[in-house]
């Protein structure tokens, strides 16, 4: 759930559908088994998009999603673990 457990961070702030999911896939493919990817987005649609993507992807597990405000901007953080 927290940033320190993430092996990689993907910053897709300022990018809109379908980029957060498409780029998450790319970064996820580079993970080793057991590692967690942190995705930072500003697209509010990424909350359901990344959750749905993780649910449909065999070796992806959504371990957490957070909402925060950074520099007056809504930021959505997603944590996805590669299970195998």
């Amino acid at each position, binding site marked *: 759930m927290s940033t320190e457990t993430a092996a990689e961070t993907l910053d897709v702030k300022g990018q*809109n559908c*379908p980029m957060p*999911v*498409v780029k998450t*896939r790319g970064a996820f493919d580079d993970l080793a088994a057991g590692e967690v990817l942190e995705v930072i987005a500003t697209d509010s649609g990424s909350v359901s998009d990344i959750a749905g*993507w993780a649910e449909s992807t065999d070796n992806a597990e959504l371990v957490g999603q957070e909402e925060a405000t950074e520099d007056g901007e809504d930021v959505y953080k997603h944590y996805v673990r590669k299970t195998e």
Partner: protein
Amino acid sequence: MSADTPASSDADPETETVADLQARLEALETEVTDLRTEVDDDGPQKMVIIATKGTLDMAYPPLILASTAAAFGYDVTVFHTFWGLEILHEENSKNLQLSSVGNPNMPVPNLIGALPGMDRMTTRMMRNKIAENEVASIEELIETAIASGVDLQACQMTIDLLGYDEDDFYDDVTTGVGAASAFQDMVDADIQLLV
């Protein structure tokens, strides 16, 4: 009546039924396992989109869906034919227009929309909105789709019909394909869409 039936003759058919059911259950389990293996052997799921429109608004849905499906692990083919070819044309794709006439969602009435220069104006408004909302450009989406492994195909018959050349298209666009290969892909696909 049933109380008169001897207990011994009652037990046998019951045991037989249980054994029969067990045998059937085992047979079904084996069948399910076999089918599962068959499905797994089939490899990734497939989606085919036939893209036939070349206006700015209609260029987005096939590219967005294609990249998204690729992210979901699908094998994706987009077969571009007729005006859909404009999306893959490196020069024309940067200059796709909206059509004001016959589009009730446009902010101008048809009569005004038919005036010279109106399409250009409404297209500029749309492009500004796209940029403001940080929506990717068509060029970016094409690059993303190709990087995600999407097979972007340009229909050879339409290339010849419109007088285009293979070199007019983005690198990695598949040319030399026709309706038969598109049809074959659709037969094998789990999802087929005409846009």
